[in-house]
């Protein structure tokens, strides 16, 4: 098997595959269209799970960042970074599926709807976080700054969320409450999608963590070589 997999990830991976197959089967074939949204309701079976998982990932980033600031361990730094990367990917999914859901439902790809707007801003914030993590800095400096940003980003998300909500609220924006008639089968499809995408996220985070870990190890190896070379200079 590949170098970053283990027994645990294989179990997660195969169950993710199984649930994905089920989610596709139920989401695209077995469950029927909804009254108002017709077949575009099927997009919600990936859209909503994407958002939920993204939020969960950013929660992990927050926790990882806080713990990193307390104990300064490589482990938690990498956990925070891996979760943020996967979370950002999922947020991109949510934005894309939201847009293609909006076109048939609202008639436009983009609406200045509070949730959509704050999600877009949040997406850019985490792109910034990932950009900071890619900077050429000593590990401990980069990790510390990333951890600070990982915590502050959550505050930003809350502030942006409420201000945007208030903005549309005061402006009495068009209401998009379609009052969807979600039935059992649709609910179940959504549930399957959540489990599938959640398991996939877990698999991705673990693998991303291990890639990060390997990068660190490689860096250590280079450092040891550099040390030997450096010590040789004087002799």
């Amino acid at each position: 098997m590949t170098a970053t997999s283990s027994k645990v990830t294989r179990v997660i991976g195969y169950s993710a595959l199984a649930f994905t197959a089920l989610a596709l089967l139920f989401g695209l074939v077995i469950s029927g269209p909804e009254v108002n949204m017709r077949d575009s309701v099927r997009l919600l079976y990936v859209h909503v799970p994407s958002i939920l998982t993204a939020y969960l990932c950013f929660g992990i980033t927050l926790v990882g960042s806080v713990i990193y600031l307390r104990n300064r361990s490589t482990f938690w730094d990498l956990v925070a970074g891996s979760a943020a990367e996967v979370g950002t990917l999922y947020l991109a999914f949510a934005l894309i599926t939201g847009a293609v859901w909006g076109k048939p439902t609202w008639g436009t790809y983009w609406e200045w709807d509070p949730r959509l707007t704050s999600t877009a801003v949040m997406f850019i914030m985490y792109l910034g976080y990932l950009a900071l993590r890619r900077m050429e800095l000593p590990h401990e400096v980069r990790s510390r700054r990333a951890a600070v940003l990982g915590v502050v980003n959550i505050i930003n998300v809350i502030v942006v969320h409420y201000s945007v909500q208030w903005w549309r609220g005061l402006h009495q924006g068009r209401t998009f409450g379609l009052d969807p008639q979600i039935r059992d089968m649709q609910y179940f499809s959504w549930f399957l999608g959540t489990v599938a995408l959640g398991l996939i996220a877990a698999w991705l985070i673990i693998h991303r963590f291990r890639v990060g870990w390997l990068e660190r190890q490689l860096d250590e190896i280079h450092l040891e070589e550099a040390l030997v070379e450096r010590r040789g200079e004087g002799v």
Partner: protein
Amino acid sequence: MVEDGFRKKADAAPIVELSGVISLIGRFPALAGLDLTINDGEIVVLRGPNGAGKTTLLRLCAGLAPLNDGVGRIMDLDLGDRVQRRRIRRQAGMLSQQTFLYDELTVEENLQFWATANRADPEAIEPVLDRLDLGRRLRTVKVSGLSTGQRRRASLAVMVCRRPKLWLLDEPHAGLDRAGRDFVDDLVGHAVRFGATVLIASHDVERAEELATRTVQMAGGRVLVDTNTRGESDRQEDLDAS
């Protein structure tokens, strides 16, 4: 009495105590497992080719360069501890290629700012300015308009006002005229008499070794040769005499 007590305590714990210290600049091991112990009141000259790690060693002692591995204690404070490192920074004084001055401000404004920032006595500035020939004409000149030597003198003035316990001088004689160099030497002697310890990285071997009580030869981020220029017994007599 107080002096005696201070000496005893200092004898127990060296001012600089480094073992197996690794310090990285980016991913480059500038210090690659360095061991060095410096006692209170010593004047140590660091020698070595360019890139031997002298500047990084000074920065490490100032609490500025990272301690990536090994054990480092400066003035009996742990370099690896965030809070203690802050105290090390307060008590160390550094003269380096970077002069820590604001180009846009005048010599006087710079000195006032740094003196206040360092909680130094503003009265202490005047004599130092005069002594460094920065007193009359130059004090109202912007730092960007100074020559290299004048800049260094201004930087030195800031450091003197701080009254640090550990003096870290990176090429202190470079760019200075004869009078400036003499002044540096005077200052070093003066500082040691008042209980400071001095670490000098210098290419001006002759001048530096005249001052030094000890010479440390560095290469490849480590100490190669460590010699007492005056010998331990002389050193002890100096202490007893003072």
